[in-house]
């Protein structure tokens, strides 16, 4: 017997998803531990994005189960997953450009005022601005005015708004889908730093990325998806980038890796 591991924050067992003749997920397993950054990598068609969609509630798997804090859950929509405290940062910067930072942070979850105006539906804009400032500052995103329209920000700062939104409302997990893909080098590094800060605040992060240097710089563990399954989970400190890519593409079988490479 190995020593008992702590209960994963988010776990999937034997997920299956078929689209017609194509099997996108073929009994995929997944484990996210508390306080970690878990990178999920895989070639195109490895089932990586289908796995993430299942975890984020964007698709419903045909078979298998998902456990949140050890309890089975079923997500019928992204909203279900959000209600359970799983927030997703989407690749294509899902923000409303002409609206303010504060409004983007609270989109769909706006706090109402008290009293008559609140009864009429008026929003508590002061509170939105103050809380937005607090959330952005806690991630050390230096923006002076929360009234500023998101379109006046740089790409990295916009991604910062999306990350802050997820970190503010996630109770369990933040999923980040290619958060640095649309960014330049400097801004990409900025977002990596944000991801670390989210983890350091105690929220585990699932990072989907094609960028191997980013993955190796930031991930605590790397989940390698291949042919609709989990090929291996490796420790970036004890495996080379080229071996990782070899497993991902099938050039190397996981059994060929040294024992300490696994995590």
């Amino acid at each position, binding site marked *: 017997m190995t020593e008992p591991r702590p209960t994963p924050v988010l776990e999937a067992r034997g997920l299956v998803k078929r689209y017609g003749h194509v099997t996108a997920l073929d009994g995929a397993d997944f484990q996210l531990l508390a306080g970690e950054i878990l990178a999920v990598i895989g070639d195109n068609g490895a089932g990586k994005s289908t796995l993430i969609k299942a975890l984020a509630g964007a698709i419903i798997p045909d078979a298998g189960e998902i456990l949140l804090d050890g309890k089975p859950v079923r997500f019928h929509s992204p909203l279900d997953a959000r209600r359970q405290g799983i927030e997703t940062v989407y690749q294509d910067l899902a923000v409303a450009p002409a609206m303010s930072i504060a409004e983007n942070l609270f989109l769909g979850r706006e706090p109402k005022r008290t009293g008559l105006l609140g009864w009429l539906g008026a929003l508590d804009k002061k509170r939105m601005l103050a809380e937005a400032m607090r959330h952005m500052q806690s991630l*050390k995103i230096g923006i002076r005015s929360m*009234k500023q329209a998101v379109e006046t920000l740089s790409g990295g700062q916009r991604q910062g708004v999306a990350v802050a939104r997820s970190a503010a409302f996630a109770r369990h997990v933040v999923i980040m889908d290619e958060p640095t893909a649309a960014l330049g080098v400097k801004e990409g590094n900025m977002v990596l730093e944000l991801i670390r800060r989210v983890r350091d605040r105690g929220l585990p992060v699932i990072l989907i990325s094609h960028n191997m240097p980013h993955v190796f710089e930031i991930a605590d563990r790397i989940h390698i998806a291949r042919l609709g399954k989990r090929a291996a989970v490796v420790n970036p400190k004890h495996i080379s980038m080229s071996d990782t890519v070899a497993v991902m593409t099938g050039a190397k079988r996981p059994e060929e890796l040294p024992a300490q490479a696994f995590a």
Partner: protein
Amino acid sequence: MLPDVATVPPTSTRGRLLAHLPPVATLGPLLALFLAGAFFTSQTDRFLSGSNFSLILQQVMVVGVVAIGQTLVILTAGIDLSCGMLMAIGSIVTTKLAVDSEMNPYLAILCGLLVSTAFGFLNGALITRVKLPPFIVTLGTLNIAFAITQIYSKSQTISALPEALEYFGRTFRVGQTAVTYGTVLMLIMYLIAWFVLRDTAPGRHVYALGNNAEATRLMGIDTARMLLIVYTLAGLVYGIAGLLLVARTGVGDPQAGQTDNLDSITAVVLGGTSLFGGRGNILGTLLGALIVGVFRNGLTLMGVASVYQILITGILVILAVTTDQLSRRKG
């Protein structure tokens, strides 16, 4: 070593300045209105008077109300070509029921509003359920509503209306100036729309939807339902515009509403709302409607032929869109 996020300069000085100023789009129409007012005051003695302003308000009352619905729709990045016809069909249903069928006038009003609202709902349902483009859907309902209006009224103007239908055309006195109840209703509707769009979650979601529909959906907002509600509400607003039309003209006119779609879009655009959705201000639309009204009124007082008024309206629209585009390109 990674750069500290806080040390990255957050934004240019210019960006910060812009964040504190109202957008050019809302200042422009106000300025244009003042300039037009000043110009006409210098050209004719009859322009600057309470009764003339009251007249301008009466003249823009109907298209002003239609433009409220149009603004809602355009903010969602849609367009409503059917607005004038939905107004006309509502006014014809109301007047015909009240006069020819001798129905209780208040019940007739309710029926007219219901018909306009039902057409708005039809627009919304076709756009959200069948996923057709708003331009095509409303072009279709424009023709359907027009044809039904002609068939139902046999293209006959309906006159001798009961008093209740003319209520919004009646006036009360503020000092020397007679003000119609209809213009008061229009102003109240603008204030309500302004509050809802600016200060409530549904209002902000209309902007978000026009800005980035997919992002809004991903944030858990039911965008299809919102669109359906917007088009249905717009239908109701056109129905109310129909009531004002009947009250102002004193007849049920089956030929009414044929230019209100373009006139309302003109008011929306002059008011600084973007035709691409998600940006703009409902009070700008009121200013836009007033600009058109002031130009028509002032030029009429100066004795300029009405074709020139149309010419100038066209130039204004192009100028408004150009300044809007240019100011945005810089930002």
